[in-house]
């Protein structure tokens, strides 16, 4: 089981970096706990459950980093921390980032026999945001640095003793990858 969990944790790390790179905010992993400006921070959260694993993904980032990672079509409209309407947009995009990250992880875990069901994402912001004690003793915290600040990610997953990954079979039906379109 431990090897399977390590594979999942590496997958989460890789997908987090791929997601932010695709959003124009490449991340560098850091070992030390990052300093997020909690006065201007926002957290996106989404829950997941499967037959042998369940938990929550939490993404914590500063306002300006989330703004910098918004879709490029919308970046010409600048957002300000002093505008409450802009905070709504930043919370919305942070929730969507959490959703897209879990979607990437879910799609890849499905190929190795782990089916996840996901909740709808949510986000919150405020002063002195901090994450409560993770539920799982196997909770994994990741820290990254980007040009516009630091990001924290918690993969707070509880695994049953029977948690395992299958081998990805070459003959299995392939899903649709990020960015691809299939017309029927």
């Amino acid at each position, binding site marked *: 089981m431990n090897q399977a969990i390590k594979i999942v944790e590496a997958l989460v790390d890789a997908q987090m970096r791929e997601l932010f790179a*695709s*959003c124009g905010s490449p991340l560098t992993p850091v070992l030390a706990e990052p300093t997020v400006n909690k006065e201007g921070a926002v957290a996106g959260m989404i829950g997941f459950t499967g037959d042998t694993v369940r938990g929550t993904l939490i993404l914590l980032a500063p306002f300006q980093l989330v703004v910098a990672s*918004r*879709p490029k*079509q*919308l970046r010409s409209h600048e957002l300000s921390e002093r505008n409450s309407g802009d905070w*709504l*947009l930043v919370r*919305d*995009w942070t*929730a*969507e980032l959490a*959703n*897209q990250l*879990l*979607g*990437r992880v*879910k*799609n890849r875990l*499905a190929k190795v026999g782990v*089916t996840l069901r*996901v909740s*709808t994402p949510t986000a919150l912001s405020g002063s002195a945001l901090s994450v409560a004690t993770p539920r799982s003793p196997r909770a994994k915290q990741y820290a990254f640095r980007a040009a516009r600040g630091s990001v924290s990610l918690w993969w707070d997953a509880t695994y049953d003793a029977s948690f395992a990954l299958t081998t990805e079979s070459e003959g299995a*039906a*392939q*899903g*649709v*990858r*990020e*960015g*691809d*379109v*299939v*017309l*029927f």
Partner: protein
Amino acid sequence: MSTILIIDDSVTVRQQVAHVLTQAGFSVAEARDGVDALERLNTLGDKVKVAICDVNMPRLGGLELLEELRKMPQFSKLAVLMLTTEGQPESVARAKELGAKGWMVKPFDPTLLLRAVSKLSGT
């Protein structure tokens, strides 16, 4: 030019898709979930040629919306393109079975989105 209904609980995604489509000359309408989409469709009627629809949404999700639309013959010509974070073959097959015309995984390529919408709307 056709009207495209964008159904997503993220306002940012709706704005992004709307930006791409309006730049290309489409008119757009927006809905924040499946329930909202049904209300919009009932109001707009057959002006809407294509719906771009998320899967994981509150109140009524994308696959459940497809099930509802199947029961409504007035929307039998509506082409639904799913736009979601999910990409598993089982979900894609389920959407196809329920009458969706396509599946796209976020983050989307604007060129591919426009090509798909143009084809589905016949423009």
